[in-house]
């Protein structure tokens, strides 16, 4: 390998890790200032994924909210160095997965201390209502529900959310190789069912 080529490769790696670390660093420097941006960046992914792991969109909305509330509380207790080293999406998903599993069991809605004026935010049906029909939701709920939990989580995180395997490994607490195998087996079963 030429020197130029390897230097370019190193540069690329540094660039990539810098982009990721930027959010972590912002959170470590000033949590209150950076936190809204973290929610903006991750909320669609968390909601889309959780929606496939719990029975209703109301549950998914609650869990998405609760996930970020817990993320905030944990981050406000963490020292700056620990925040800088976090695999953010993997770690946030650990929390979201735990809450999703609990919700699938208990299905109790959380009481809120302050209720947002929803009229100020809703005009007509939500984005989900337009994009995915109730029928499609039911079908996917049944198909994914038929998979073992580990395969279902891994498939959803990989293909609905689009998470890299390394992040899924952090989120599920399993080895990257195991996660790959779970996704592979899960997809194979779904393909069989759809054919």
């Amino acid at each position: 390998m030429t020197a130029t080529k390897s230097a370019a490769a190193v540069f690329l790696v540094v660039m990539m890790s810098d982009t990721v670390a930027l959010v972590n660093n912002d959170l470590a420097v000033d949590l209150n200032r950076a936190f809204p941006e973290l929610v903006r960046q991750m909320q669609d992914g968390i909601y889309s994924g959780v929606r496939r792991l719990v029975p209703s969109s109301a549950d998914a909305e609650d869990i998405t909210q609760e996930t970020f509330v817990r993320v905030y509380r944990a981050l406000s207790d963490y020292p700056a160095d620990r925040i800088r080293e976090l695999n953010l999406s993997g770690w946030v998903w650990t929390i979201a997965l735990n809450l999703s599993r609990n919700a699938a069991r208990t299905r109790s809605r959380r009481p809120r201390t302050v209720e947002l004026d929803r009229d100020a935010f809703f005009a007509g049906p939500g984005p989900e209502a337009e994009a995915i029909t109730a029928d499609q939701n039911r079908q996917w709920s049944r198909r994914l529900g038929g998979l073992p939990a580990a395969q279902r989580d891994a498939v959803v995180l990989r293909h609905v959310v689009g998470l890299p395997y390394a992040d899924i490994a952090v989120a599920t607490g399993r080895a990257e190789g195991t996660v790959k195998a779970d996704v592979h087996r899960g997809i194979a079963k779904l393909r069989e069912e759809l054919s």
Partner: protein
Amino acid sequence: MTVEDQLAGLTTGAPSTVLPQVLLETGVADGFVSLEGPTGNMFVSFNSRGLSSLTLGTDATEFQDRFEPQFGRPVFPVTALPSRLGRSLEKTLRTNRLGNLPIDWSGMSEFQQAVLRKTAEILPGEVRPYSWVAKEIGKPKAVRAVGTALARNPVPIVVPCHRVVRNDGHLGNYYYGTDVKRAVLEAEGMNVGDLVERAGRGIKLVGSDTTHIFCHPTCRDARRTTERHLVEFRSEEQAYGAGYRPCLHCRPAA
């Protein structure tokens, strides 16, 4: 269409309520409601520390747009105040006294806090000059700074900055204009006409020739003095010179 493509197509946007609800629950943003106040509609914002702002007006969007640059965090509409805070605010608005209403003092300097807490001690139906507030907080020379601190009062009405008037007895400035200051004072039972008339004649203090005590004209003790026994003074020096002593309730400074 492959299974993978179908799964990727299940991505949806999170409901628009998620972000504000999370920011409210974590205290990264404040919530606000719209209420009927002494001069019409007003917006009241709050967080876990207490009431953070009170704004007279009718345009919610304008209120929201101005809040973030001023306080450094967003504010979102909520259906109601948290119940304890709501009850506490209701009592404050009914009695015109701050009482135990929690206020978010966190963004204020110690000086501004001292000014506002002292101002909250002025009873409804009474007024005090800026110099009185300055003297009471132990900064008798900081009269101008007291004016600035009151002008930046984030919670008018509940912390009654409208009860602080010019040292010559005239109503003086108010964020919402002198007419609103007059209306708020009249709404809590004050005879503003008398106040302005007396100020026009250069009268800053009044006394009783039976007790030989002098007061601010709106002190509840001064208001009990009958017309026949009421003596008017243009300054503290004049009152002392006549052999009068200051009232222990209103501790006059003019």
